[in-house]
């Protein structure tokens, strides 16, 4: 029983960054912009949060203060949004190939943090540890979960409501399916796409903040370790629907939790369990496990 509970908590924790990122990606892709740079936006968010909190601690003299981690979270979200804005300008204004632009952001996210780390902490792989983490909540005496975990799951119905019950959501989906038709109905296609891409960056930045100042207490080089891509996979696996995305991220989170739990056990080697999300996604894409159809206009630059 104890193992099951531990596995349950671990799954919720592992799924959280995936959920934030995938819900963000949902906005971007539903508006017709592929965001392959989510991985990089997580890293930028993680770095900005950890470094921001560490600097604030230095500025305030290293005290424990309740407001510091929240400002750190804000840094992460803003940084993610800023990087996403660059992706938006490239792919919307300059009609760049969205895959190329996203790849550029992912590579930038490998290099840029380590230049800053080198200057601030004289090493290229980790930031200094911080004391002000985003607080945990005790759940019925069974374990601790970060506040952000709850936020992530509460976000699912909210995103569902925004996308499928509000006029704004309808317009967003229209922009991703038939931008020309949406434009004739008076929808600002360009503006919608900018907003959607920036939202995706903000949420990826929050996911990064969760990793660096929620789950851990420092930034570690390449700490997202492909979670941006797993989130992208969850988006496909969940068929571009918030509830599907929730299911997919929980499943992938379970795999990640299992890979940790079963380390050194005798059921399956953990390296193989780690590969399962990727294999499953490929099977889904090929149509072996139900067909998954992307928004019709995804990846295409829009010309007025």
């Amino acid at each position: 029983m104890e193992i099951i509970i531990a596995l349950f908590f671990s799954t919720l924790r592992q799924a959280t960054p995936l959920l934030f990122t995938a819900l963000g990606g949902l906005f971007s892709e539903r508006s017709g912009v592929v965001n392959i740079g989510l991985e990089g936006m997580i890293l930028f968010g993680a770095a900005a949060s950890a470094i921001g909190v560490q600097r604030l601690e230095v500025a305030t003299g290293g005290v424990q203060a309740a407001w510091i981690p929240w400002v750190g979270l804000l840094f992460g979200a803003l940084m993610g949004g800023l990087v996403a804005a660059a992706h938006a300008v490239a792919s919307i204004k300059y009609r760049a190939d969205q895959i190329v632009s996203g790849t550029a952001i992912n590579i930038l996210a490998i290099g840029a943090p380590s230049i800053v780390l080198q200057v601030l902490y004289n090493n290229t792989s980790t930031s200094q540890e911080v004391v002000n983490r985003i607080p945990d909540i005790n759940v019925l005496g069974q374990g601790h979960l970060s506040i952000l975990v709850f936020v992530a799951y509460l976000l699912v119905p909210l995103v569902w409501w925004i996308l499928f019950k509000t006029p704004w959501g309808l317009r967003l989906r229209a922009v991703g399916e038939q931008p020309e038709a949406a434009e004739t109905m008076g929808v600002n296609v360009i503006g919608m796409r900018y907003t959607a891409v920036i939202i995706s960056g903000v949420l990826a930045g929050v996911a990064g903040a969760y990793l660096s100042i929620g789950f851990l207490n420092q930034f570690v080089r390449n700490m997202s370790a492909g979670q941006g891509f797993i989130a992208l996979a969850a988006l496909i696996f969940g068929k571009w629907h918030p509830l599907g995305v929730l299911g997919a991220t929980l499943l992938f989170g379970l795999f990640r939790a299992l890979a940790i739990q079963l380390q050194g056990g005798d059921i399956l080697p953990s390296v193989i369990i780690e590969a399962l999300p990727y294999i499953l996604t490929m099977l889904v894409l090929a149509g072996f496990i139900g067909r998954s159809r992307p928004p019709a206009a995804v990846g295409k630059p829009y010309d007025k």
Partner: protein
Amino acid sequence: MMSRYLFLGVNALVLIFMLLSPWAVPTREFDGSGYMLNPLGAINPAALKLPDLHLAWLPMMLWLWVALLLAASGALFLPDERNRARVLYILGGIAIALFLLEALLFYQAVTAANTAAVAAGARRPPLRRFAMSLGAYVGLFYGFGLLLLGRMQLPGGRAFLVRYRGMVVPLVALLLSVLVGAVIVAILRPGLGLANAQAIGLREFLAAKLDLVTYTYQILFSPVLNLTGIFSSLAFATPLIFAGLAVAFGFKSGLFNIGGPGQITLGGVGAMLAGVYMPGPGWLVFIVAILAAAAGGALWAGIAGWLKARFGANEVINTIMLNYIAASVLLFLVANNDYKFFGHAVHLPFKAAGFEGRSEEIQPGARIPLIIDLLAPGGHFSWALPLAVVAGIAVYIGLGRLELGRRLLAAGTAIIAGYLLGLVLPGFAVKVSTDLSSILFNGSFLLAVLALLFYHFFLFRSSSGYELRAVGLAPKAAEYAGVNLNRKIVVAMLVSGALAGLVATHYVLGAGVDGTFRLKQSLPTDAGFFGIAIALMGQNTPLGIFMASALFGVLLSGATTLNVQLGISRDLVTVLQALIIMFIAVGGLLPRYFTDPLKAAQVETEDRTRQDELEAKATKAVGD
């Protein structure tokens, strides 16, 4: 005219840069702090001592530049466009000549001072790490700018730029990335020599920042100055060539192969399996191991190709997924020997004993030798490699009238004949420094050159290559013309993956990582992503890919020094690569007609019509 006032602004900016930046640095400490020369007086925050140096010409130069800038500003307001062009050409030439004169005078002065000091009994030359600096470089770039501006005045100027957009866009992207990189460095690091200086004025502050930026790029490009640096750069370039070709091959066939890292990994696995375990004579294992590297990459990319052809699954997502699966495969094979599957024990033989996750060693016969050991085995120069290269090129050019297939065959034979002849010819003893022989520049570079040739001849000179490019440009039209699309997709991914897999020949068979002939858990696979930058920058042409790889090879090689001397992470080059990808993706922020072939053609026609009209008018005027 807006653009004229813009040009005046540029001129003012050039003058400001000349007044603020160091023009040359006659001596510099190891930590970078230097003695900065400027026509308005030297800037020397670290209080370095300078011997007697002939520098009286420096303030005069500034007046010449001011005169030049004024003349250029006036020239743009000349009424006749032909005269405008002519004057700008002349001024541009003068600017370049002025820069060369400055360089000549400066290096002469420094050499004279050093010689004098050594003659007077100094143990070593007092002036070290001397170089021209930003203030002088600005003049040189301004000169080139004037020449270009002159060309732009004449009719057809815009069409001229658009015609060479394959070079313009990557160069502008490179320039923009270098500028952004400079700003990043200037923000993050303090100016050079300011660490212990008292009372820093604004002038010192700005000059030291500009010096920092200039010196950073001088270090990054410094490997081109000596043979060790060039070898090291080419060693860094080898994986980039393979990876760039892999991505470019995909682009040309209309596919985005972002799975380089996974294909490199599987290439490594293939090379390891054949190179360690295959029995047989050394030369056979050698060849099979190289082919196995290609096969490993081809297999991995082929999966994505097959899934796209058979089920229409997006190759971008699938190749990314395969990257992570490959990482798991690598760990599974070389990180551990013993696994349990539902309680059943499974033993894998691949991991060598020891703490580190790595395979057994490649057998000696299958190892790729260092280039230096091919050029001068045992410190004795051998004619084999140079003769082979010369013979191959000579025969290929000499037999220009022959049909291509025979021509290539003849060139191949000539290469082998040249190699064998060179083995027989007597060489001579050469001294190889330990610096040079310790560089891990191995024969996989020659494979990379062969891969470049293959890419050129297959894509641009063979009918199946033609079909692949047709699929890439217009899949529907190609299909209508009778091309089997699905088959082409699989073939394209197989070849692309094979090219990426060959990166492993450098890392595993050639011990390019750290001198050990093993497949390691820590196999570097970044080249797979950087291949995207290489392909974009090289515009998918073989020459372009080679140049882009060489450029980044130099930067990567220079970056190791950068970290030691200035404390700037070598990841600056990673950032530059990312920026280049981004700037090329947005077409260098240039107008649409530089990136859109249809609009480009439109501009070229417009300009040509205007040119014809003007010429007609001129002829008519002469006739009257």
